[in-house]
């Protein structure tokens, strides 16, 4: 028996690996699919996070960030956790009222002046009026597929983090990149590149 080191693959491998520019570049796109991510559901999920010292959004469809974690509250008892935190390693197996499960999402970072046009053409929500300070997130339909989306600010421009099903990744990329070409072009930046936010800096400052 051999045990090769497993290689993780993004649903959009080309985008992850290379910095490219297409058209004028009114939008920055970055593939963040291979981030560390975990889903947590169950009636004790919120309590577990609180007792673990993890910031917990107080209502569904909001998020909090801090301690290296981005915590999205997708429902009363459902969370998406992104990042690294010692408490996450303690979750381990299921327990009554606590159901951790893998999240293998396609996830994108989008920023720039072109994002407004892009979202107007693909989604019926009014992101223009969203205040990042509200820490709101949307579970909505974008280009015909279900996505989770939140808005932040990056270098004075609106930016968005987007998650969708891994299997929709190629379709989403094809759709977004073709629309972005019509609305001023785009630049792709490899995840983790210098200058690209890993979460810090694009979210409103936490009060604690």
């Amino acid at each position, binding site marked *: *028996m*051999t*045990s*090769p*080191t*497993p*290689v*993780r*693959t*993004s*649903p959009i*491998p080309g985008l992850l690996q290379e910095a490219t520019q297409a058209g004028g570049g009114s939008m920055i796109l970055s593939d963040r*699919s*291979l981030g560390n991510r975990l*889903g947590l*559901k*169950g*009636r004790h999920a919120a309590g577990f996070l609180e007792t673990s010292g993890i910031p917990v959004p107080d209502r569904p469809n909001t998020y909090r960030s801090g301690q290296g974690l981005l915590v999205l509250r997708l429902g009363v*008892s459902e969370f998406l956790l992104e990042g690294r935190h010692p408490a996450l390693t303690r979750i381990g*197996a*299921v327990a*009554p*009222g606590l*159901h951790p*499960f*893998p*999240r*293998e*999402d396609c996830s994108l970072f989008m920023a720039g002046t072109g994002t407004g*046009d892009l979202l*107007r*053409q*693909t*989604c*019926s*929500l*009014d992101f*223009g*009026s969203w205040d990042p300070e509200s820490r709101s997130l949307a579970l909505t339909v974008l*280009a*015909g*597929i279900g996505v989770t989306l939140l808005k932040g600010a990056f270098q004075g421009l609106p930016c968005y983090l987007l998650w969708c*099903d*891994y*299997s*929709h*990744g*190629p*379709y989403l990329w094809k*759709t977004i990149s073709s629309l972005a070409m*019509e609305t001023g072009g785009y630049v792709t930046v490899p995840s983790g590149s210098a200058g690209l936010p890993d979460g810090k800096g694009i979210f409103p400052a936490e009060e604690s």
Partner: protein
Amino acid sequence: MTGERLPPVQGEWIDRETPVCFSFEGKPFSGFSGDTVSSALWASGQKILGRSFKYHRPRGIFSLANHDINAMMQSGGVPNIRADITQIRNGMELFPVNTWGGLSRDRARILDHLSAFLPVGFYYKAFYGKRLFPYWERLFRAMTGLGRVDFSQPRQFTAKEHDFCSIAVVGAGPSGLSAALSAADLGADVVLVDENGHPGGSGHYQRGGDDSQWRTTEALWAKVLAHPRIRTRADTCAAGYYADHWIPLVSGQKMTKLRAGAVIFAMGAFEQPAVFRNNDLPGIMLASAAQRLIYRYAVRPMRNAVVLCGNSDGYRAALDLLAHGIRIAAILDFREADGSGSSRRVQDLGVPVHFGKCIYEAMPTADGKGVAGVRVARFQGGQALAGSGLEEISCDGVAVSVGWAPAANLLYQAGARMLFSTTLQQFVPGAFPQGIFACGRLNGVYGYGDRLQDGASAGQQAAAFLGYGECGPRPRFLEAAGPSHPWPVVPHPSGKNFVDLDEDLQLRDYANAIQEGFDSPELLKRYTTNGMGPSQGKHSSMNALRILAHYTGRAPGETGTTTARPFFHPVPLAILAGRGFHPERHTPMHEEHVALDAVWMRTGEWLRPEYYRSAGLDRAAAIQAEVRSVRQNVGLIDVGTLGKLEVSGPGAAEFLERIYLPRYANLKTGMTRYAVMCDEAGTVLDDGVVARLSGDLFYFTTTSSGAAGLYRELVRLNTLWQLDCTLANLTGAHAAVNLAGPKSREVLGLLADVDLAPASFPYLGVRQGRVAGIPARILRVGFVGEWGYEIHVPSSMGTALWKALLQAGRAFGIRAFGVEAQRILRLEKGHLIVGQDTDGLTTPFEAGLDWAVRMDKPFFVGKRSLQILSRTPPRQRLAGFVLESPLPGAIPEESCLVVQDGSIAGRITSIACSAACGAWVGMAMVDRELAAAGTAIRIRLASGALVRARITALPFYDPGQSRQKEVPCD
């Protein structure tokens, strides 16, 4: 530039520095940038712009506002462009639609002389008899239709976007500009929409010989442009209204779905024609059309005019004509007097004014393509007194100004209650729905200053509705004189006095329809087709209503109106369709399949390899090679499209007991069991495998296409049941493959850290471990009837798993196989596919799944229905069959019928050529009486021929299950 082009006019929309060349009917023409097709042609002296729809009468400019369709043209591959509002471009090649041989020599003009044989309702009456129906249909199809669709044109992908604002103002005339400014000043985010490329509406072109109103309008526009809270959308039509203030904005490039907090309609009014004989001759136009020609395009509408009035606006139009050097032969006024200052100014200028007079008929030029003069009659009591002598006045054009109809279509669609004002002779809003406001002419306010005030008030009200400031009650305005004449209709014994120019409907058509009993607005509309042409009644509905009221002895307010529906303007299909989104899902190993030259098929949203191309093999041979590989060596298929769910918690087993037919409370940890579920009617809904990973954690699969809907249904059910368990959907998070074949264990053994010995990992077992270093769930299941493993790993490691398995299997002759090979393999094994071998009515008893139904459970979804169904034998059964003496070209396909004694006795659900069985084998849902093994059946081919088959016990392959397990399963 010669012809009818005027010297520069203040505020003209054309750029005289930029000439534009185009052709019309093959002849070269030129105009200026900013000209529309109609204005450029008119300026060049081309007065016939089109032929009418039914009688092919010559037509010219009538409204110059897309309120009629006299001038519809084909521009290359684009049919039916509106020449009145379409700007010319260099190189345009234009042709009129609806002519047989060109405008001048249109052979179909003979129809104008046959109008007596084409009375109202002719179409409907023609189709009464079945015998002649095909004849009429062919004739009408050949005769009618506007424009030519060019199927070779490349498909246009237009954007479709969403936009949002606090207040949408529809119409950028004086009242709309004023409303936008007042609302924005109070803090509202305003979108101002106008169908024209330039703002101002009637404030631009209805000047009455005085530029002061235009200058005021221009000043308002400058303020709008500078306002930080107002966004403007020119050349954009608000084409409809939908619930919750949702408005489709249609421009030449795209549709924008605008969601507003409140809407102010300031769309003004459509000028209405007078009805008199030959009122459609080229040269006879609405007064507002003449004003548009002058002020927008600096084009002389006519040289020697007659102005027909029914209101004071006609005198202001006369002043505009006079101001630009146009002689006015006479002004005819339906009324007995006019007290406006404009009429006095006109008379002071020496223009003869005839009160109480009407045009009895317009006289055509010798060639019938223009107007030579008018015959004038005394108009009294709503009648032309033709017997008292007719005066003839020579002219080359008539400007008609007799009244207005509010552009209220969107207001109706929004649910406003409209009332008929006898003073104004128009419908005005009586009550508004929440967040809907109107101002200006649409609101029955006509004075220029009044419109500004009314707009400002509407803006304040809309802003206050959204919490911006406060406002008082709306001001009321009193019109000194009604802007619309109540009966601008002149009967004539020879007809051709048109009410609807789109459909060539004459006054007597309405009288006849009403006499035949079509005496309500909706019936009249459908029988006469009034308002059903491309201009949607903009110039005809109000007059039709007046005529209906007149002939039925009612007031227009008592007859009601027709229903206004979106779209208000015709919308090109390319814009309406917009960009389509067609989501598709790829498994994580998609690129690996591409590298293996997969041929794709869609399964719901998923793209799956149907088979892999192989050098020198056709489709069938390639599939058989894949089947052979699985039967003889080892094959690998991507099954990541399966639904993959988890349920955990103390209530998890109970949850599965309720949703599936078999029992799961007694399923041992580390084991799997087939799962099949029904709906409440006892119909087979889905199937899969349930694996117990630990005491309170189950992992289960569903069919590929059913996963998303099923997960939603399961969440709904647990919301009702409130069991102590949690569901998670891992469909996209997990990749999955099936490694199958007699050598699969050896291949997996090279990579897995799990003991694969049958004693420790038996058939139907499930283990968690690592494969090629990847955390995996391994299920020993045998859908294809061979020793096999279903391996589930995180999606991001699916590619690594796939590569590792192919690498490890190379020495064992491994081959990737696709969905078609899998279908053959499972068919040989007699395994059904839900949705293919079952349909929307199939019960488990019919599908041969009786063994899975555990009626001793206290409850499961569908139990009650199945209890009832179990009392009688099923009407049909799913059975296997083998074709007897199959001949090439005579092989049944799926869905072919089983025929017994001349009646339908079943249908084929699956069929394939099985190399392992050496026969064509299949499954069919047949009548119960035919389901016994050995029964001969006959299958009807698509050609009608019958082939013989024999019912056979399932499975066809390895009935002893010896190939997929070595020890008895539990």
